[in-house]
């Protein structure tokens, strides 16, 4: 159990760093969605299924979609 959780936390940190250094904004949004998804799994492990559900639906799905729609209207690559 502790190994799974530490692996997920490391993956989450990697996703967070990747989201901040990617120049391709779509990739950055996907990495941020990965952070949300792992956060929802961790919430579930911490026995907060309510929060996990909200995080998975809003953080991973809706926010990423809204960001991608916004990127389609502007520029894909950061200078």
């Amino acid at each position, binding site marked *: 159990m502790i190994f799974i959780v530490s692996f997920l936390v490391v993956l989450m940190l990697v996703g967070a760093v990747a989201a901040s250094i990617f120049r391709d904004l779509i990739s950055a949004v996907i990495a941020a969605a990965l952070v949300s998804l792992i956060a929802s799994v961790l919430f579930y492990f911490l026995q907060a299924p*309510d929060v996990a*559900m*909200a995080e998975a*639906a809003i953080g991973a*799905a*809706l926010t990423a*979609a*809204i960001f991608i*729609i916004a990127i389609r*209207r502007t520029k894909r690559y950061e200078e």
Partner: protein
Amino acid sequence: MRRIISILLLVIVALGISLSLAKIPFGVPKTKVGKHYINEGVKETGAVNIVTSVVVSYRGFDTLGEVTVLFIAAIGLGAVLSTVRKKTARKIEPASLVLSTGCRVLFPLILVFGTYIFIHGHLTPGGGFQGGAIIASAYLLIYLGCRERRINAKVSMSLESLGGLLFVVVGLFGLAIGGYFLTNFLPKGTPNLLFSAGVIPIIYIAIGFKVGSELTGIIDNLIEES
């Protein structure tokens, strides 16, 4: 120079946060009210899910405020986007057959799951916000997979208004019958049954409809724009 100052500032902030977190005992109950919710929550509200009894019953007025914040955000987005909307009809490229068929099969299942989440909010984890978000993600799937389909904006807006109205009306009924806003005036019934916990399922159904149609409206507004 600026870099050194910012690093110094970061170190000071991290030190302050870690020192104050170290003072908080972990895993020890710190408040009496939390104990009261856990021990008396089921008896007082009839909801087996303690989170729901806090969100809808003990802190129901705060929930009304949260729903209002979401409502104002959706209205603000709609107002901002309506000023820049262009009227040209765009040619929509249809998605492939596999994608559109998959979306059409998955859509009702996700919809039923979202509805289950908010109707059973007082029994199982979840509730109006979670169910509404899941329903909105089902509509997002339809927007991405079957691109020629559109929701009826009038229906979604009236559902949203009806949900908010139902919440306030139930609260005012509680004020008239029990003496304070959102009194649980219906019989509480046996815990663990679907028809239990008085007004809590009604309020959660209202919240579910409201949040679902609001988030769907936000996605609808944004996709129309792009």
